[in-house]
């Protein structure tokens, strides 16, 4: 197809709107649901529909990630809007027969509220969805991400058309500044200001970059947007390019996201074909081309200067600022780098205006933000909420609370740069300012719910292990400091913690924060600092009592059975791979400590909470052993000295 004009865009939109009432089965094709077999389910659905002669007017569409990943594979029928979850290949013939031939939606595959036990017939009946406000994710599950026409049907490229044809760069920047949009990648820098700084820099060659190197473990909103709605990213980039005067752009995507790469490639191809990328876009005289660049797996490349070095084909080490990338960025040219989610918000802001965007959120944190809610919450997946929503609402209403029998311990927010927020601070509204006050950060939006089976010291160690591994090695405080902190934390989790370790950790943390060049080092100690701040007693229990209350640090626990509550159901004995649990049926059981390998199988198997976690030396044995070990250590050291 030849280059299109605005009239063509509107025509395509009208055709698409006319097809709104088409019968479609929107089957989720995000990474999560694909793992659940949604590719085969699609084939089966098509086959069954074909056999019944229904394939002519009912199409099966693979959409992007729907967000409710834990319940996948998911499907929404159009136009009647029935929501099916956890589909199984074997039941597809039955489902097609019941729903499409007999017209009886099948309750078996509908979402059932874990509290009220009611079936949800439509997506609106599910609390997970109906408290969300979709902005960046508005097209998820609604369009086929591989068809540009469907995107245009949802007002796609209308924002770009408006920006290119009717607005000056100043007007674009003013609208974005007025909207109060802040960078969604982590730092929360005002997007309009970033563009403005770059727009004032003279130079004929400028670059617009999109950061899709989503490195935070536990966050996958960018992946989801790139998979579900790749064109929105391109449209955002076109608008930004016009604002700063760039004609070349790159999207830096993780190579670990093969589906996102595939869909973005396809989107770029289609946009080029329509003339939405390339020379003289929509007859405006403005040109921009965008290319993909695959990241090679380095967390630090999420930092803007490191990302630019990586595109230049070098090691991804950050460089000092100033000069800021807005002045000297990629190949020393003025560059603007924005996150995927930031770009996804732009087209709607241009189309509907700054005030529309500000109608959601708070005064300083406007709009909506996508979070990846994972961990111990019942409903896990991707959610988009207006800023100002409290953490409690997110966990207990959208997330549906915790599984039965588990109690809430903390919420980890912001990945390795963020921190843990305890129960008493759950009424904190989610805004950039309020979250920072707790010691955590909004970050890219990873939200991990932790319950009483998670050890906070071990979690801090996990994050430190991550940052120590991912430190690029440029700044000594970060390279060596994180390693030293990791060693201390490893000692603490292995039962070798000493008095003063906590204070030493705090000291080191402050040094690393102040003496590191980039965001990685400056924020790396946050998980340790917040866990010490809110869960100091857990650190102390590890060091003084040699007791990991959560039962995670193997050297610091003894599993035992509470004879008072044990019903003798034998579930624990059956779960034990070492046959370390003895006891008659219907009689209290007990664990033979010398055989126990602390695998937790019994703890997980017990439905009555009778398997308890005690300190390492509760039966005295381990304590003695460690004393002996110390003695032999000393002896071996002495003999070494003699030998030396």
């Amino acid at each position, binding site marked *: 197809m030849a280059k299109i004009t605005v009239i063509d865009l509107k025509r395509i939109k009208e055709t698409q709107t006319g097809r709104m009432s088409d019968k479609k089965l929107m089957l989720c094709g995000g990474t999560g649901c694909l*793992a659940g077999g949604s590719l085969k389910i699609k084939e089966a659905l098509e086959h069954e529909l074909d056999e019944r002669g229904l394939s002519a007017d009912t199409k099966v569409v693979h959409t992007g990630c729907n967000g409710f990943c834990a319940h*996948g594979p998911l499907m929404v029928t159009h136009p009647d809007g029935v929501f099916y979850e956890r589909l199984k290949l074997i039941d597809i013939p039955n489902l097609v027969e019941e729903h499409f031939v007999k017209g009886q939606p099948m309750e078996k595959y509908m979402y059932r509220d874990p509290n009220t036990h009611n079936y949800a017939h439509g997506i609106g009946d599910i609390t997970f969805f109906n408290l969300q406000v979709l902005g960046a994710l508005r097209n998820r599950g609604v369009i086929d991400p591989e068809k540009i026409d469907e995107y245009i049907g949802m007002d796609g490229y209308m924002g770009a058309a408006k920006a290119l044809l009717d607005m000056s760069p100043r007007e674009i920047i003013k609208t974005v500044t007025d909207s109060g949009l802040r960078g969604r990648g982590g730092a929360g820098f005002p997007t309009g200001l970033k563009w403005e700084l770059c727009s004032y820099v003279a130079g004929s060659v400028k670059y617009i970059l999109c950061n899709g190197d989503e490195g935070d473990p536990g966050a*996958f909103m960018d992946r989801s947007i790139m998979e579900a709605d790749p064109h929105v990213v391109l449209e955002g980039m076109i608008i930004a390019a016009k604002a700063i005067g760039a004609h070349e752009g790159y999207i830096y995507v993780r*190579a*670990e996201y093969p589906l996102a790469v595939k869909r973005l490639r396809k989107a770029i191809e289609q946009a080029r074909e329509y003339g939405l990328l390339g020379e003289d876009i929509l007859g405006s005289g403005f040109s921009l081309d965008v290319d993909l660049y*695959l990241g090679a797996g380095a967390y630090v490349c999420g930092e803007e200067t490191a990302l630019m070095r990586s595109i230049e*084909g070098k090691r991804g080490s950050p460089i000092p600022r100033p000069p800021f990338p807005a002045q000297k960025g990629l190949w020393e040219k003025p560059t603007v780098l924005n996150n995927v989610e930031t770009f996804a918000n732009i087209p709607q802001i241009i189309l509907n205006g700054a005030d529309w965007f500000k109608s959601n959120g708070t005064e300083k944190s406007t709009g909506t933000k996508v979070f990846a809610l994972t961990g111990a919450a019942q409903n896990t997946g991707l959610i988009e909420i207006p800023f100002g929503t409290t953490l409690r609402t997110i966990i207990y209403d959208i997330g549906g609370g915790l599984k039965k029998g588990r109690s809430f311990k903390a919420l980890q927010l912001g990945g390795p740069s963020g921190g843990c927020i305890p129960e008493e601070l759950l009424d904190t509204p989610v805004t950039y300012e309020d979250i920072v006050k707790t010691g955590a950060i909004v970050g890219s939006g990873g939200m991990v719910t932790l319950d009483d089976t998670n050890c906070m010291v071990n979690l801090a160690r996990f994050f430190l292990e991550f940052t120590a591994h*991912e430190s690029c090695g440029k700044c000594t405080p970060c390279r060596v400091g994180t390693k030293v902190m990791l060693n201390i934390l490893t000692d603490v989790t292995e039962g070798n913690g000493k008095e003063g370790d906590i204070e030493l950790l705090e000291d080191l943390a402050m040094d690393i924060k102040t003496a590191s060049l980039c965001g990685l080092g400056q924020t790396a100690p946050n998980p340790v600092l917040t866990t010490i701040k809110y869960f100091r007693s857990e650190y102390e229990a590890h060091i003084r009592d040699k007791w990991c209350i959560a039962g995670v640090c193997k050297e610091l626990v003894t599993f035992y059975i509470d004879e008072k509550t044990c019903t003798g159901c034998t579930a624990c004995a059956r779960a034990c791979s070492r046959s370390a649990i003895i006891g008659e049926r219907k009689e209290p059981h007990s664990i033979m400590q010398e055989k126990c390998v602390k*695998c937790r199988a019994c703890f997980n198997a017990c439905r009555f909470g009778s398997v308890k976690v005690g300190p390492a030396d509760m039966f005295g044995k381990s304590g003695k052993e460690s004393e002996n070990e110390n003695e032999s250590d000393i002896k071996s050291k002495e003999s070494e000295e003699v030998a030396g």
Partner: protein
Amino acid sequence: MEKNILVVDDDEIVVKSCEAVLSAEGWQISGVTNARDAMELIKRNTYDLVITDLIMPTIDGFELIKWTNDNFPHTRIVVMTGYSSKAVLRDAIALDIVDFMQKPFFPNTLVDTITKALNTPPKVPVPSKQPDVFDMEKLNAIVKKYKKKPGSLITILQEAQELIGYLPPSIQKAIAKGLKVPVSEVHAVVSFYSFFTMKPMGKYNVRVCQGTACYVKRANEILEKLKETLGIEEGEITRDSLFSLETVRCIGACGLAPVVVIDNDTHGEVNPVKAHELLENYK
């Protein structure tokens, strides 16, 4: 070609004497005094012949012979034993060995026996070492394609790894030469990014996600189980080259935590037992 021979005997004097006699014949000899060390060496090197004693502490010669035949069938085995019971000898011969010698023996008996044994063809062909059989033509084509484009080193490396499977030093050198940059510059990039590997991968690459969501759902227990099942550590490859084991820092499928990726298939909500079963499907 120089022959590689391994001598295993718990008596160090026997090992040393054999080494002295056989190296004089121009063969490459290594000697160890227990079967465990022998296994380690056999894993790492290719031996044309293993001479082993039968009666040794912890792991005896029978076990070593069985293990070697199972895993490295190209290796010829000669038994030397001071234990002259016919039943024992019969058992040993039944294990598919090339020859045997009764201790004590004269140096010329040893040389004769070994020469004869080396002349018998191995049961299966000796696996040829693979380096330098890479498709250099295609590699050069990749380098040529991107040569003029600045900053394309990472892209070249990604395509080279796609082509060859990994990036050994010889490939890094070839790329550096093609781009006219120092090898150190190429190696700096290869060693920086976790996507690049300098070791070969298994036919199926097993990656255990260690992202936060997977971690809090005890992905490390899955990793431990896989290590145990495959008998390898992280970053290693199984002896049959079928599986390699890696960790990955979050693949963004957190809703399905904990996650294991085998090749390009993502498996969600894995537990140690299920992880074990998953591997079975790929065997």
